[in-house]
């Protein structure tokens, strides 16, 4: 019996965090997307779906602002015909939707949703390789989209798949490089510890309490903000969200990689995109915005006052931040028009790649300087090195840019 308890706890965490928390958030982020898009465009959005009391002979339906819309959507997806075209590669056609949905959900396992509830950390796997695991698993989701595009045996789908493949690989580099200064600062890859550290000493991009007020943190603020920008924008590209949603860009590619999909298989792609968005937001919130911490030193007070129940409050805080970030994603989607494909690649390889590299060096310089391990000469040398590196990088970026531009001007020889 004793040995069963840890298993039960893990099961409870898996079910609680994945099925009770995340899946409804995914469903409702679709609803939020539709309503938010509607109010941005001076429309109403889905506000009718509710309990159809009129069927049972009552006078009026209860609509709750259309809050039951996700249920109706899900029901529609389940009841639709699951059509498999005859010209597709059946095995991969079936495999692809699972390959997009599963990685997104697996990456949730290392995200700390809250502090501790009765001595149990609110994270499924308290792994000490958090961000690495997320990058490793998240990069698998490119297979889902690419295989879907290829298996569909349709040129538009294939274009979508290829685009997605190139885009995700390009932006993974920027993603990985931009997060290095953050990990250097914390010196730890365990996301729970990273959040606990931020709760104590100030969020990464809001270092206003604890040890956050030291000169080192103040100086580090600049590279961290740059990291935050690059990381956030790369997450947009990584999740195929709007300014970068070229894989499914309907004006050029019909529906992109999921053109041939219908019913629940399409729903898996659709919800997989939102799941990836949630994981991305969770990661940004965890790394840069203090995860579950309330901030301003209020966390210690919460731990004292609520004791074992503090985890619930922190869970609420985390979810609030998550929802705010999802709304930000939606706002950006309905604000910024889609990038052209060469612009997208240019942004990834010519701007972000170099900027992230320089950013790492600047962060490293600030850290070593503040720990007093450098003599003045060494410091001057290191600074000169960083400057020279930056200039070289800038020059390379410029020449690449010019090369791309001249390529675009001269018509292709055939």
């Amino acid at each position, binding site marked *: 019996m004793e040995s069963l308890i840890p298993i039960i706890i893990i099961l409870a965490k898996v079910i609680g965090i994945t099925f009770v928390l995340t899946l409804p958030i995914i469903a409702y982020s679709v609803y939020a997307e539709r309503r*938010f898009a*509607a*109010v941005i*465009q*001076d*429309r*109403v*959005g889905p506000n009718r779906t509710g309990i159809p009391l009129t069927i049972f002979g009552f006078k009026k339906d209860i609509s709750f602002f259309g809050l039951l819309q996700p249920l109706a959507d899900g029901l529609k997806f389940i009841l639709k015909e699951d059509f498999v075209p005859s010209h597709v590669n059946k095995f991969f056609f079936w495999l692809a939707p699972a390959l997009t949905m599963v990685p997104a959900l697996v990456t949730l396992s290392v995200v700390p949703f809250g502090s501790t509830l009765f001595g149990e950390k609110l994270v499924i796997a308290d792994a000490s390789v958090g961000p690495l695991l997320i990058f490793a698993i998240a990069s698998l989701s490119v297979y889902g989209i690419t295989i879907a595009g290829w298996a569909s045996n349709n040129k538009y789908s294939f274009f979508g798949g290829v685009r997605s493949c190139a885009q995700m690989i390009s932006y993974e580099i920027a993603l990985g490089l931009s997060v290095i200064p953050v990990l250097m600062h914390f010196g730890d890859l365990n996301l729970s510890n990273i959040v606990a550290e931020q709760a104590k000493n100030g969020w990464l991009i809001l270092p206003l309490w604890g040890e956050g007020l030291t000169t080192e943190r103040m100086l580090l603020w600049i590279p961290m903000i740059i990291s935050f920008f690059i990381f956030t924008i790369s997450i947009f590209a990584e999740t195929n969200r709007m300014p970068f949603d070229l894989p499914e860009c309907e004006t050029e590619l019909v529906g992109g990689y999921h053109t041939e999909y219908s019913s629940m298989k399409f729903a898996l792609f659709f919800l997989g995109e939102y799941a990836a968005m949630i994981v991305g937001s969770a990661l940004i919130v965890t790394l840069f915005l203090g995860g579950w911490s309330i901030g301003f030193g209020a966390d210690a007070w919460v731990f004292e006052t609520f004791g074992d129940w503090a985890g619930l409050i922190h869970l609420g805080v985390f979810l609030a931040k998550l929802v705010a970030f999802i709304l930000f994603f939606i706002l950006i989607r309905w*604000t*910024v028009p889609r990038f052209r494909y060469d612009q997208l690649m240019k942004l990834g390889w010519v701007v972000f790649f170099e900027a992230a590299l320089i950013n790492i060096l600047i962060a490293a310089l600030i850290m070593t300087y503040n720990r007093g391990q450098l003599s003045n000469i060494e410091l001057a040398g290191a600074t000169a090195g960083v400057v020279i590196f930056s200039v070289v990088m800038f020059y390379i970026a410029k020449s690449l840019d010019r090369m791309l531009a001249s390529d675009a001007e001269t018509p292709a020889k055939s």
Partner: protein
Amino acid sequence: MAKVTKLTRPELSKSDEVYLIGIFKGTLVTLKHAFKSVFGKSRGAESLNSTGLGVTMQYPEEKWDDELPEYYRGAPALVTDEQDRERCVSCQLCEFICPPKAIQIIPGEIPEGDEWAKVEKRPKEFDIDMIRCIYCGLCEEVCPEQAIYLRKDYAITGTSREEMIHNKERLYEIGGKRVGLVNKWNDLK
């Protein structure tokens, strides 16, 4: 010779090239619209008669009936005159002109001794199939007796095909009485 002016496309300034400022301004615009919609103050909501949550008029609750123009072409209907006489004399002109053949009339004699015997005919049956009707208004235009009119009813619904066929009774119910028109059968004039 037309004067040719060459326009040069304006160069992007440095701040435009960074995009971030432009994106920030853009988010402000979309956010402004979002907040105005949420607080029921969408621009143009007033003139479009909506609740203000967007400019959409929420149809079954809010209707535009008051703003319908005089010439609105809704469901065709038969009318009676001020002495409750059926204006229709079943000449069948509307039946012949109706482009989708929605109107079906079975003419009937007015028996001797009836108050309006001198009119001689009135429809025994007058059916308009509202599934076929295209609301063109030709029946109204062609009617020599001014007996058929397109009214402002537009929500013609039913759950079966039979329900969608308006018979004479229903047509008079929609049409009602119409006064002050041609009065050639009226003795009082």
